[in-house]
């Protein structure tokens, strides 16, 4: 959407997106290399006495190959729910989701997954955790009786050791069980485990939320460098705006208009971010303003009248200087 995205100068486009416009945008961009496409997805759960709780409402998103999408929103706004749909763990009540070119029907190996907790298999050592993916994909349960298993295992083992050092772990950690690792090390291994599959899509649900600030920031740096090497498509769910601004190339905020059960979350902010990763240190006031804005949007204080919305984003864009606001309204669709 924002063509200046790849220029070294930081360019960020802000789109405040209305629901119909998103749908129009979805149609307009069919030709782009899409990695994930979410078409008009709504999710609601049955409550007792035939009432329903709507969690997500008419979400449409197109995520391109190689984008690093951070998904922000208040607790309970349905970030994990959306991720479950992307994984294929649940089906949306309405709408369609496709990942890597085909519809998501069930959980399969087309996307890697790093959850917040239980991210490793507790009964396997680090090495076995890493080798599990490539080995199971070649040899299912009885396949390991085949003689070629051992040869493949040797190759996978070498690759696993490479990943271990790449992730900043010691080779001596390979034999340890997850309970012998700190939380940060566990998440490193979990990321490595997903990377072993060489997936083009990586889904992470608050993967760093349980870590202390310094471990967290070193993992953030690690994730960014890993991402920039092979550029998989990442969808990263977080609560932390600073983390989002540092990691992502695109920021999506989900929020609901009211606390009413009938009203689900929508995409209330969808913007491209600077490639280099924004931090307070490198971007100063600009960063603080953006945090403030994103937080206002995610807690539902967004401005609803189109006029107001425009003024707010314009004012903010001027202040930042480099932000290019993209105004989207139902009448004129997407304007670049």
């Amino acid at each position, binding site marked *: 959407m924002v063509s200046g995205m790849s220029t070294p100068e930081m360019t960020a486009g802000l789109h405040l997106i209305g629901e119909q416009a998103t749908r129009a945008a979805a149609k307009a961009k069919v030709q782009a290399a899409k990695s994930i496409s979410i078409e008009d997805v709504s999710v609601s759960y049955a409550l007792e006495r035939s009432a329903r709780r709507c969690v997500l409402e008419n979400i449409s998103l197109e995520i391109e190959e190689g984008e690093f999408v951070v998904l922000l929103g208040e607790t309970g706004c349905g970030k994990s729910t959306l991720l479950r749909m992307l994984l294929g763990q649940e089906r949306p009540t309405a709408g369609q989701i496709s990942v890597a070119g085909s519809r998501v029907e069930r959980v399969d190996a087309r996307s890697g997954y790093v959850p917040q907790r*239980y991210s490793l298999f507790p*009964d396997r050592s680090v090495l076995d955790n890493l080798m599990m993916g490539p080995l199971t994909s070649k040899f299912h349960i009885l396949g390991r009786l085949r003689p070629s298993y051992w040869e493949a295992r040797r190759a996978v083992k070498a690759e696993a050791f490479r990943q271990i050092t790449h992730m900043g772990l010691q080779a001596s950690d390979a034999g340890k069980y997850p309970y012998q690792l700190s939380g940060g090390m566990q998440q490193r291994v979990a990321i490595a485990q997903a990377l072993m599959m060489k997936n083009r899509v990586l889904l992470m649900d608050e993967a760093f939320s349980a870590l202390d600030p310094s471990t967290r920031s070193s993992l953030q740096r690690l994730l960014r460098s890993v991402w920039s090497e092979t550029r998989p498509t990442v969808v990263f769910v977080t609560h932390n705006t600073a983390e989002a601004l540092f990691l992502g190339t695109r920021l999506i905020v989900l929020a609901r208009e009211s606390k009413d059960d009938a009203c689900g979350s929508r995409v209330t902010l969808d913007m491209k971010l600077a490639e280099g990763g924004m931090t307070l240190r490198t971007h100063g006031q600009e960063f603080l303003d953006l945090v403030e804005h994103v937080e206002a949007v995610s807690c539902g204080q967004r401005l609803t009248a189109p006029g107001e919305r425009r003024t707010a984003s314009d004012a903010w864009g001027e202040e930042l200087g480099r932000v290019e606001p993209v105004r989207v309204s139902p009448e004129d669709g997407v304007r670049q």
Partner: protein
Amino acid sequence: MTNLSPFDIQARPNRLLAQALSCVLFVVCIGLYMHTSVERHKENAEDRVVPSGHQLVAGIRSAVLEPAEEDDYIPAESASTWERLRHSMIWKDTASSGGRFFISLALLIPFVVLAVHIGLFPWFGAGFLRFFLFFDKIVALSLLPILFIAFGIDQWSKIALIVIGVAPTMILDVTQMVKAVPQEQIVKAFTLDANNFDVAYRVVFRQVLPQVINSLRLNLKPMMLFLFAGEMIAASDGLAYRIAIMRRHMGMDVILPYVLWVALLLFLIDFSLRVINRRLHPWFQA
């Protein structure tokens, strides 16, 4: 100064003292027994209800070194201790009860596997869970007459009783464990290209196995209970059969060693399962 108040949750008992305390009840039991025995023997030197140490030793000797009454094998005077041991009453009873016990244990394995499927595969859950929830409420002993008719009065009726008695509980227990495996793990396994059986056996089963073994340890006693019930009602050998026979002529000198022997056997099976569990699953801390 060690806090000696028994009602202090935060007390830190001294190790030695704590260990001594843990022996006290055993000592008290033995003391009470000996006291009662001595008292009763004062009144009647031939008392058989609370046998004296002397009588107990004689009872144990006869159980360990002499064949059962109904046996037609009588070892020669010159037979070695080992020869006598092999044809002794306690050996014969232990072997036949043990055989029944371990065959039932082996027969429980397919039910554990079934339970993994019930907990994991929705269609298995739909098909079996309600049935076992109901079946679990049937008092297994009340089926005994039917089992005697169906399986005859030897071996297999007792084995069937144990399996019918313990399997439903085991199944429900293991199903719960399987359901408690975090969804993240299952989803993760699928994203690593595992197929359904990989997930069932190489992810979920491996993870619940230590808990399954612990559940088995808790079920050892119910298993023994069902075995004893079966043997006491109809059998021609076995540990419980012997206890039932001895009761008829007040053979407390044999019954008491048998009771302790059974307890010891159960304790040893439990202990070895615990050790195996710890060795095999170092990652499982509980």
